[in-house]
């Protein structure tokens, strides 16, 4: 600050000079920091220009093998040519407007619900939105009514599948996780033990094992003739897995709310569930927004593991596209980069939303 104050007034105290002062203070204030700054700049020079050359300048969007063979950069033509296969998997080609529309509806209700969360007056619309939205999505995806042809869910794939698996996963894992967290704190030994055992077992095994068990072992326990759909099994596996992690996140939040809050609710005559719903959970949930969103993000990415039981999520449809024509196989970098970009878009949006929500809920209320 004093450096800036010493500057002569007029054109000499320009923004470029201020930038130099800022850089000196923040980037070159010690020899160690200077080395780090120079090193970082060198690394950026080393990485960024070749990336731009590969990804933009020398790349092609033309969806043909010939065009791709001519360029030295990225062959976005692969993505361009296979976009619908990557996005919608093996869903019947002529019916692909249906998953597209379903996806639009789904993203619409997600944005709608997330937007309503900070405003107490709007929250009551969240559940009706889903109650209407889910059947609409189901009708669009399955069809079989309203003149839509029936599409078996083994043909579903790509982004709609990823989005459906993760949003339904979140919707059901959230309340289940909450119950488990409350169960773990319960004074009733049976409930407590069950919750602890469940949480610890699930947390002790990888998701891939849970999915594999849901897909291969679970049917063995069912009576003969009864089959549960593969997609449903994967969905249940994801819900059960995520719930255990969320339960631990929620427990942290519950423990952070002082016991006096519960006592105050009790002494006013509120029942256990009323105290929980009106007093404890609103405070606990606010505290656990960042780790909860963290769980959602990892779960969103973990849905890619359904590949092991033969479902075609977004990542697996890229593979499908690569195999569709042997000529495309060498362009896997482009394919996976595209999938990565989509995943990044969703995950980063979630992270930004979490930051916004935290700020929004803290407004007006100072502790």
């Amino acid at each position, binding site marked *: 600050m004093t450096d800036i104050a010493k500057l002569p007034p007029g054109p000499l105290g320009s923004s470029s000079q201020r930038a130099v002062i800022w850089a000196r203070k923040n980037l070159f204030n010690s020899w160690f920091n200077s080395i780090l700054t120079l090193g970082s700049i060198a690394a950026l020079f080393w990485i960024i220009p070749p990336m731009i050359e590969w990804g933009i300048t020398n790349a092609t969007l033309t969806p043909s093998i010939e065009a791709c063979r001519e360029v030295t950069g990225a062959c976005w033509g692969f993505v361009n040519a296979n976009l619908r296969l990557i996005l919608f998997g093996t869903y019947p080609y002529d019916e692909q407007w249906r998953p597209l529309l379903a996806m639009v509806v789904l993203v619409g209700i997600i944005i709608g619900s997330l937007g309503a969360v900070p405003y107490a007056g709007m929250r009551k619309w969240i559940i009706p939105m889903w109650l209407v939205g889910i059947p609409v999505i189901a009708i669009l995806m399955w069809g079989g009514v309203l003149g839509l042809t029936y599409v078996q869910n083994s043909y579903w794939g790509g982004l709609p599948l990823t989005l459906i698996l993760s949003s339904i996963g979140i919707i059901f894992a959230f309340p289940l996780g909450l119950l488990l967290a409350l169960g773990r704190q319960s004074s009733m030994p049976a409930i407590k033990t069950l919750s602890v055992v469940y949480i610890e077992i699930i947390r002790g095994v990888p998701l891939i094992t849970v999915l594999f068990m849901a897909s291969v072992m679970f049917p063995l326990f069912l009576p003969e003739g009864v089959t549960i759909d593969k997609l449903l099994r994967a969905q249940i596996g994801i819900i059960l897995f995520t719930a255990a992690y969320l339960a631990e996140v929620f427990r942290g939040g519950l423990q952070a709310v*002082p016991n*006096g*809050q519960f*006592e*105050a609710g*009790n*002494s*006013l*005559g*509120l*029942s256990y569930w*009323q105290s929980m719903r*009106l*007093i404890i959970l*609103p*405070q606990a949930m*606010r505290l656990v927004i960042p780790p909860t969103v963290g769980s959602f993000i990892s779960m969103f990415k973990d849905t890619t593991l359904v590949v092991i039981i033969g479902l075609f999520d977004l990542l697996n449809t890229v593979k499908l596209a690569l195999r569709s024509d042997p000529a495309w196989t060498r362009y896997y970098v482009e394919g996976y980069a595209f999938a990565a970009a989509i995943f990044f878009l969703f995950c980063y949006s979630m992270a930004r939303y979490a930051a916004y929500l935290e700020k929004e809920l803290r407004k*007006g*209320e*100072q*502790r």
Partner: protein
Amino acid sequence: MTATATETTATGVVTPPPSNEEVITVSKANKWYGNFHVLKDIDLTVNRGERIVICGPSGSGKSTLIRCLNRLETYQSGEITVDGILLGDDVKNIEAVRREVCMVFQHFNLFPHMTVLENLTLAPIWVRKMPKKQANELAMHYLERVRISEQALKFPGQLSGGQQQRVAIARSLCMQPKIMLFDEPTSALDPEMVKEVLDVMVELAKEGMTMLCVTHEMGFAKEVADRVIFMDAGQIVEMAEPQEFFANPKNERTKLFLSQILSH
């Protein structure tokens, strides 16, 4: 501090006498925390409209005793009856008692995520099933009584300790309880805020509210209490009218305690 409270709250108004109707009966109540015997054979009857001050050294069980009266603490043997309802493991009974007995806590325990008004209307709306509009009117009425109505739309975190405790008292009053329990209501306050809270409590006492108050504010005890109880090591050591209690304490432990707390 005690002396100040005495001077400022002594208004000389005679409080209405309590009735003969028993509203709380504690007989042979015992409680253990593990091996620690925290309440030993407690016997106590409180009449409707009676104001009782409980004092004693820390760890004597006085907070535990009043927390047993609305079942924030369980007891292992004996019997506690409040407003004719036996307090045991029956959840229905516990909820019935809690609707009639409210507690004011040392640390206020206001709900930080709600405005002052929402803090007050929560229980009337959810427990008494009162329409929101009526609950708001009731809340404003009691906020005016504790002289804090202009803060209705603020959050607890924006208020001083004394204001928060007055809000907590108003919150309890909104349930229109038959009995009010105070668990060291002024102990967490800065000295200059003690008076505003005690003033509200004195007014309540003079309106005939049944009150059990764990406090070391001896001025308050002298002014409004019908009986003062001294507890030590989980027992009721001495119980007397305030004049008698302060002028002629019988027990050695009471004498020692009083000399310690009145000496400064």
